[in-house]
């Protein structure tokens, strides 16, 4: 990614080369205003620039590593801008995009679509790397969390596992390009393939998990974003709540997930969802109030406890899946190439039988060729066929087509199919070794027996590929021989010199006429539903080999190559489903907190209520030593007007997870924030160091319409009050919380006014300390949230 060197926000300089005069003037105006107001009242956030954009932005997200901002427009275009607002690329995936997130290393942007696909795009050029269908309905939220290297202790480092494949094999083969000869865009295809290669190798460096939550309450987990490892349906998860010594079980119905967040140590997952809470012990205890937004805490410690094992398995398994795709593409391409060639051949030679019947003869074309070969006589029909309807040129064309198809087949087999199958078998052997380590790998569901089965299948596939290449070579040679013999015959019939034609083997011509004129073994091998009959010798031989440790399934040679491949696929699927189900079954719900009720009419809109979840490392952890750090979760959300009889409130809660798991750690606490009446909260986000950034926009009715505020609050300065997390049915503990009045001129935090009416989204970047906000007048404004250290000092000295 050398293309994008990290760019530090330049200090107090206007943007370079504004596109038009007007904009330049506007920007300068902004800058002036910014500097003047900064001088006057110490306005905290510096305006970097203010740019008009021709789209309505729906979603925006900063890259965690580089100064890049990805935005999704209302018509589902994806834009990528640099910090200086230079546009890098635009893509339109043609689907409605409902969520966006970056991979932790900032190299991939993941998009969730309305129809349940996760699309992974390369940051360099916007090319799609993968498209994975993991959900049935719209994906509302994405969260891609990476394991922190800090949490790794010395002991686990010794368990580091090396992927040996790269040492023993050349780089994995890529998918054969369709229509290899005449494609004009080979350069592009090459690049794409390289990107995919780089992607699969680079993405496996550090363990990370992508969580996706959809509208129907399903959450999917996939390692590296590509290898699915678990799926849970919140509608089916039993929730046990310990309240006053009594255990009550609940269940949520009609769940729609609005936010997921996996902690950085992969230990816990917090999600916000709306749904109806049902007491499974006492069904009568539910009423309208039980429909609301709830906060759930899921225990995903399986990911952190077993991350080494999961890492190894997913690394091998995802590359196996890649290679399986390569094999599939190779087989389909070979079958296409060959059937094209064969169509031409049959088209030309099918004229012969009809000619024969036209001449009133009852012999078959095979007989005719035979009699020609042995020099008895040449029937007028055959003579006519060879000389006029086929002709020398036609014959040469067939020969050329078959030859080129044969060459293609050879290339595909030797460069794609065979290496792919070989690497699959090697990687499977490695996986089998892991599967044998029962004490470690059985609890993530790697099953030894299933792996053995798959290894056996892939062995048979290797044999099949070898057989296929042999059959193909024989058939091609026979075709070549036959066609040059026919050419010779044509020349003789036309009494032309035959010295140009290569000599032919008449025995092989007989074999060709007997076995190949009507049949097509290559095609048979490439089709799934063919059964082969092999001579008794071979069958005996195979049975014999079983004693020597051969394949116990002695019938495997009866299957075709394609059939064998589909069997391999099936068993692979079965084998990889085991970890999937095992891991899914080990994710449990740990705690529940009803946040606020919603009436069913606005239940739909509740998904768009601004909310933010973040995990922060606990600084002072006296009870534990440094290696086992814990993290605190902060949940911040806006309470919709009218719910809980509150209006214009924002709530912040912390320590939800810790209060669920243990009793001695700090318990659940939070506060409510009342926003001045004339403003409404447009969006909010948690920001580094326990801060909250709020976007307030003036209500259209008030005189403040058109003016907005960006507020950054230091949560430590605000008083968190504890509240209990046990609850009777249909009760929302949030009501207990103290409400604080937010006044825009107090020193809770930093406040800056924005002279535009604002709209969602708000994108803040903790790593770069910038925020991008969008006005409803189609402007994008980028603010610097915190100044550099030295700047702070400067300001301090100025004040002095």
């Amino acid at each position, binding site marked *: 990614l050398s293309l994008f060197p990290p760019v530090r926000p330049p200090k107090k300089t206007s943007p370079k080369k504004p596109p038009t005069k007007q904009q330049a003037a506007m920007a300068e105006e902004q800058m002036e205003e910014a500097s003047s107001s900064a001088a006057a009242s110490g306005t905290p956030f510096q305006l970097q620039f203010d740019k008009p954009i021709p789209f309505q932005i729906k979603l925006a997200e900063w890259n965690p590593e580089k100064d890049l901002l990805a935005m999704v427009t209302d018509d589902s275009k994806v834009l990528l801008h640099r910090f200086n607002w230079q546009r890098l690329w635009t893509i339109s995936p043609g689907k409605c995009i409902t969520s966006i997130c970056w991979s932790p290393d900032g190299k991939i942007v993941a998009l969730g679509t309305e129809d349940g696909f996760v699309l992974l795009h390369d940051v360099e050029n916007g090319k799609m790397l993968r498209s994975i269908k993991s959900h049935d309905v719209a994906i509302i939220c994405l969260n891609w969390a990476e394991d922190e290297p800090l949490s790794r202790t010395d002991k686990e480092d010794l368990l580091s596992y090396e992927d040996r494949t790269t040492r023993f094999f050349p780089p994995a083969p890529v998918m054969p390009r369709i229509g290899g000869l005449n494609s004009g865009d080979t350069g592009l295809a090459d690049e794409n393939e390289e990107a995919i290669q780089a992607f699969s190798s680079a993405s496996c460096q550090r363990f990370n998990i992508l969580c996706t939550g959809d509208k129907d309450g399903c959450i999917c987990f996939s390692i590296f974003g590509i290898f699915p490892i678990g799926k849970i349906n919140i509608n089916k998860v039993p929730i046990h709540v310990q309240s006053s010594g009594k255990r009550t079980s609940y269940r949520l119905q009609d769940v729609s997930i609005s936010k997921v967040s996996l902690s950085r140590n992969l230990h816990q997952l917090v999600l916000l969802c709306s749904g109806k809470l049902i007491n499974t012990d006492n069904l009568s205890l539910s009423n309208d109030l039980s429909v609301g937004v709830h906060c759930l805490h899921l225990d995903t410690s399986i990911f952190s406890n077993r991350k080494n094992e999961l890492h190894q398995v997913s690394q091998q398994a995802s590359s196996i899946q890649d290679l399986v795709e390569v094999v599939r593409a190779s087989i389909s391409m070979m079958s296409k190439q060959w059937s094209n060639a064969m169509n031409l051949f049959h088209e030309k030679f099918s004229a012969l039988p009809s000619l024969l019947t036209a001449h009133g003869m009852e012999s078959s074309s095979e007989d005719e060729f035979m009699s020609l070969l042995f020099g008895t006589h040449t029937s007028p029909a055959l003579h006519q066929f060879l000389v006029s309807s086929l002709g020398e040129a036609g014959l040469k064309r067939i020969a050329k087509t078959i030859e080129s198809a044969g060459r293609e087949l050879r290339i595909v087999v030797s460069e794609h199919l065979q290496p792919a199958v070989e690497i699959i*078998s090697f990687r499977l*052997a490695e996986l*089998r070794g*892991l599967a044998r380590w029962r004490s470690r790998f059985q609890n993530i569901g790697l099953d030894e027996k299933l792996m053995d089965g798959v*290894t056996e299948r*892939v062995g048979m596939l*290797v*044999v099949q590929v070898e*057989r296929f290449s042999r059959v193909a070579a024989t058939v091609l040679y026979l075709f070549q021989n036959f066609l040059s013999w026919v050419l010779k015959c044509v020349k003789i019939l036309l009494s032309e010199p035959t010295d140009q034609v290569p000599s032919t083997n008449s025995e092989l011509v007989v074999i060709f006429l007997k076995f190949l004129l009507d049949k097509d073994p290559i095609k048979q091998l490439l089709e799934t539903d063919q059964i082969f009959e092999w001579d008794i010798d071979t069958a005996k*031989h195979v049975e014999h080999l079983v004693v020597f440790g051969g394949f116990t399934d002695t019938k495997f040679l009866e299957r075709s190559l394609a059939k064998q491949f589909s069997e391999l696929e099936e068993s692979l699927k079965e084998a990889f489903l085991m970890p999937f189900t095992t891991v899914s079954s080990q994710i449990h719900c740990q705690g529940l907190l009803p946040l606020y009720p919603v009436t069913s009419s606005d239940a739909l809109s509740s998904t768009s209520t601004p909310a933010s979840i973040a995990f922060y490392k606990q600084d002072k952890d006296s009870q534990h030593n440094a290696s086992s750090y814990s993290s605190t979760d902060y949940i911040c959300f806006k309470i919709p007007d009218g719910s809980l009889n509150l209006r214009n409130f924002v709530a912040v809660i912390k320590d939800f997870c810790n209060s669920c798991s243990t009793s001695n750690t700090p318990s659940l606490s939070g506060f409510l924030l009342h926003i001045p009446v004339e403003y409404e909260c447009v969006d909010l986000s948690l920001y580094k160091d326990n801060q909250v950034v709020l976007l307030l926009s003036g209500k259209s009715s008030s005189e403040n319409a058109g003016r907005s505020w960006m507020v950054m609050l230091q949560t430590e300065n605000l008083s968190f009050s504890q509240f209990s997390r046990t609850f009777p049915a249909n009760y929302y503990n949030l009501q207990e919380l103290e409400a604080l009045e937010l006044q825009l001129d107090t020193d809770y935090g930093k406040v800056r006014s924005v002279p535009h009416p604002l709209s969602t989204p708000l994108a803040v970047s903790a790593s770069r300390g910038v925020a991008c906000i969008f006005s409803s007048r189609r402007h994008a404004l980028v603010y610097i949230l915190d100044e550099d250290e030295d700047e702070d000092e400067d300001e301090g000295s100025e004040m002095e």
Partner: protein
Amino acid sequence: SAPMVRMNTLVYATCFADAASSSELSLAYVKLIEQLAVFKGYSAAFCALKLAEEKFPSSTNSQIHLLKMQLLHERALHRGHLRIAQQICDEFGVLSSSVSGVDIELKTEASLRRARTLLAAKQFSQAAAVANSLFTTCYKYNMQVENASVLLLLAEIHRKSDNAVLGLPYALASQSFCKSFNLDLLEASATLTLAELWLALGSNHAKRALSLVYQSLPMILGHGGLELRARSQIVLAKCHLTDPEFSVSEDPCAVLDPLNQAAEDLQVLEYHEMAAEVYYLKAMTYNHLGKEYEREEAAARFKEHVTALENPRDEEDSLVY
């Protein structure tokens, strides 16, 4: 990759059975039988060997003959029939030409097997002498794989003679040798030997040994033969047992699982010495857990193997198959 060896040989044996020359085909069969012996035990291997001998009846077929002798030697060693093992060793020596510098591979194999026989007979100094001279030969002729395995053997000799400290440098040398020549499986077994040596140095090294075992396990379980696998399982259990912080009653499965697996593998292999060790450890573990019935059972099996080892009754049996 062991499964790939099998697969590719099978490809050869299946696809080219009609075209290959008999010597090449017999080589394929030899490879398959070797695999069988390592992964499925001797009875299966000898069964296949009989068939192969029928298929290639020419008595001059040296490869199959050689294989037969190798298998017989291994089995004799495992069963504790040392006299037979010695006899086969001598036969090996006769097979090679007496001219120096010719048939080097055969000669090194012969002396390697001699050293192993001596080791099994607990004649450590002689075994070490043979191994040392073998190492110089291998070094002279640049035989890297043999070099590494001889070093490993030396480490093993020192370990068995309770000289763990002397063994360490050999094991380390072997390990680094393997690393530079990409001999992964041999490296894993060198790592395993290293772990055994650390373990022999005392219980405060148990943690280090355990991490070494963990390092080598994926490789060994994936590609190693029955013997190596069983050995690694035993070492794993031993690591847990010697670790002072580990308590059997808390996590009995951590010890019993590997031991059971090792017992299974060794049963197939007819390896009395190691099987006895496994049952001894098992009996000890059950004793700690207070499960008397299981303890008695394991102890009985232990006794069985020890007597089989000490009184090789049916020695003649070792030469027939």
